């Protein structure tokens, strides 16, 4: 670790379980994205909600606010509007952004205020100890063994906010995975550099409340998107692979709509107009 990268970690030891995917995001931010962007810590504001991943601001040596459940993205917008020179990043989990705070996301998208929104999607409510979340795999799809252990499985279908965000036309939509810190760091860099609202979904393992098979299965079939190269489609798809074009919202929507358990596309899914 160089002297520079050390600067972005605060002295506080994370409360996360050993092996938690949140460590991946912490590294991607403090060892990759922030040092590479070279933005001084006092010019960065990280706002989070409530949940395991929302503890992250305390571990990063920038201005930070571990706020309340579901509201990180509105607080982030207010701060950015009041002080446009700030780099503002909103971080929260799938429960935070897709459930309790779900109503704020489309409006942040349409305002296209220049903030970066990172959703740490671990398919479960970890902090309350294993409750189902909007992204918990659905029983009807035959994914019983992938469900969190102590609770009854969900009857509601998965809420696919990635497709939803593409559909609402967020100006930068990407997906990363917590186990690939270098790639995730790059995505965050690109998201911060993008002038407008950036939405980054991070597939993240919960080692305590999800069976290990869930993340293993996701990880085994991820595919990295590269502009101009053919996309990989899940076995169930009868379509012919096309060349990835992040400017084409219809193609991006197709990619987003593949269930993560069949094929999770990592990279920049869509990049629209800048602010």
């Amino acid at each position, binding site marked *: 670790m160089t002297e520079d990268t050390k600067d972005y970690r*605060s002295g*506080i030891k994370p409360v996360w379980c050993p092996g938690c995917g949140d460590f991946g995001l912490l590294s991607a931010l403090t060892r990759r994205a922030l040092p590479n962007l070279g933005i001084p*810590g*006092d*010019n960065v*504001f990280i*706002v989070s909600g409530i949940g395991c991943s929302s*503890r992250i*601001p*305390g571990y*990063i*040596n*920038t*201005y*930070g*606010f*571990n*706020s*309340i459940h579901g*509201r990180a993205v*509105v*607080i*982030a*917008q*207010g*701060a*950015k*509007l*009041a*002080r446009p*020179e*700030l780099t503002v990043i909103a971080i929260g989990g799938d429960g935070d952004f897709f459930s309790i705070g779900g*109503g*704020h996301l489309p*409006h942040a998208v349409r*305002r296209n205020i220049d903030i970066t929104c990172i959703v740490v999607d671990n398919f479960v409510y970890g902090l309350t100890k294993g409750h189902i979340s909007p992204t918990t795999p659905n029983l009807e799809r035959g994914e019983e063994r992938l469900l969190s252990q102590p609770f009854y499985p969900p009857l509601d279908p998965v809420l696919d906010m990635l497709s939803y965000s593409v559909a609402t036309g967020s100006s930068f939509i990407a997906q990363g995975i917590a186990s690939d810190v270098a790639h995730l760091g790059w995505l965050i860099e690109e998201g911060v550099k993008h002038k407008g609202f950036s939405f980054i979904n991070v597939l993240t393992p919960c080692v305590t409340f999800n069976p290990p098979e869930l993340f293993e299965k996701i990880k085994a079939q991820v595919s990295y998107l590269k502009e101009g190269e053919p996309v990989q489609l899940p076995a169930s798809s009868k379509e012919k692979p096309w060349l990835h074009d992040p400017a084409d919202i219809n193609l991006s929507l197709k990619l987003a709509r593949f269930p993560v358990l069949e094929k999770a596309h990592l990279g920049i899914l869509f990049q629209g107009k800048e602010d």
Partner: protein
Amino acid sequence: MMRNRITIGIAGSGGDGVMVLGSFLQKLAAGQGYFSQMPRYYGAQIRGGGTAVKLSLDTELPTVPEDNVDIMVCFDWSRYAEFKSELVLAQDTVVLCDDTEAGQTDLPGQHLSAGFSRESRTLTGSALNKNIVALGLLTKALALSEERVRKAISDDEELTLLKDNLPAFEAGEKLAAGFPLSQFKLSPALDDSPRVIFHGNAAVARAAIRAGCRAFFGYPITPASEIMQEMQAELPRQGGVIIQAEDEIAAAGMAVGASLAGAKAMTATSGPGLDLMTETMGLASSAEIPLVIVDVQRCGTSTGAPSKSEQSDLNQAIYAAHGDTPRVVLAPYDIAGCYRLTIESFNIAEYYQTVVLLLSDQWLGQTLVAASSDFLSKDYHLKERKRPAGKDSDNYRRYQLTADFISPMAAVGDAGLVYQTTGLAHNEKGEPASNFETMQKMNEKRWQKLAPLRQLDELVTVFGEEQSSKGIITWGSSAQIVLETVRELGLQRKVKVCVPELIHPLPDKIGTFTESVERLLVIEMNYSGQLYHYLRSQICLPERTAVYARTGGRPFSRRELAESISELAG
């Protein structure tokens, strides 16, 4: 004989031009120095339905309109019934019904048929200008200076509509001669310099900008929306930001974000919106983030009656939010107070780093008042946040325990003062800390820093004689009519009236007042007596304490208050 005060009722259907008639008359009179108040009465309709105003013109003071109207102008008598308790007819009220009403069987006995529509049709082929005809008639009846009316019409851009329809106005002037209106001539105003016309919502918005507010976030809600509209028009010009948020949760959250980044930030709403802001109030109180929330109260419970006034959000303002959540509650009672207390709200929020709720109400918010412009031109002292002196991030403690419990606050983005904060229980550095000693100290800090506010005597006004043993405590817009009723009953020497503008934390001066009287009457417009119960929870009240509290939706009348006030006076 000329009069010093007159009360005019105007009612009709949506589209009849009731508001235009009322506000033009108010404007022309204000240009000649007359004071006035013009409350608006309307239902929940989107378009159409009934609409009414009551305009009191006064040569000396912006008095609350009398219970009874002297002149009633009615374009649609079938609509009058909706407002009969606000626009009460007396024996000698002159009721001017439009000629289109002729033949209606239920018109009041004393009504006169005035050709508002007929004159308009003769001139333009349509009845659209009937309100302008009525305006001409009224200015003549009130004996407003013709010369100054003409000058206002030619000079004032807001009267362009009148300038363009001058023949209708003149036709109305001529009509006046045909009616027995000579008793309505007004004496010239004591001081004929022009008055400014404001409603409380506009006063709040203007004052916020004056106080340095540069970030406003709102969501449409009756009867508070005019604050957002005023901000929309003015704030961008001042280099500020304004967003119509997706809901009140977002509006309050954005204000917190902007405040953290160093801006003076505000949101405005009514009861249902305040419900949604409750979690943010708790957050701002806990993390000590300055935040001003304006609540223009309407009738509750739940959706209640959005366009009607009540004072029933006091409990919510004082107690809402889980945990021990200190905040400050202010309540203006007149137009100048709406302006002054908005500035005070920012001063307190910024200096004490806390949440301030400004409780206005529909009456204050939407009644157009022609008042002296003194409150606009006065000097107001602005207070700012305490900022850290150095730039030493390693040693900066955002929640440093100081002698006055106020910790210097860096704005997010300030060089060299990086800190993290949270709604979690936290220590002086802002780090999560849930041990008992820290939590106890931090609760003490957040509550005790507000203690000096109890000594702000200037935010509690006592009217009347100090030695009176009989007292009234009232608050918000109700105070205006209470004060006038006491005066009109000639009881100023017997009954003193205490009007707190700071309600929470409870000012010491209220305790001094209650200790000084043998009999106390608390007057407020809510069913459960919220101020009364709050006072009882904080201080001892005289054994002989009575409460006059009732549901809102209908303004207090002088007649109704006279009974309990006379009873108090004994």
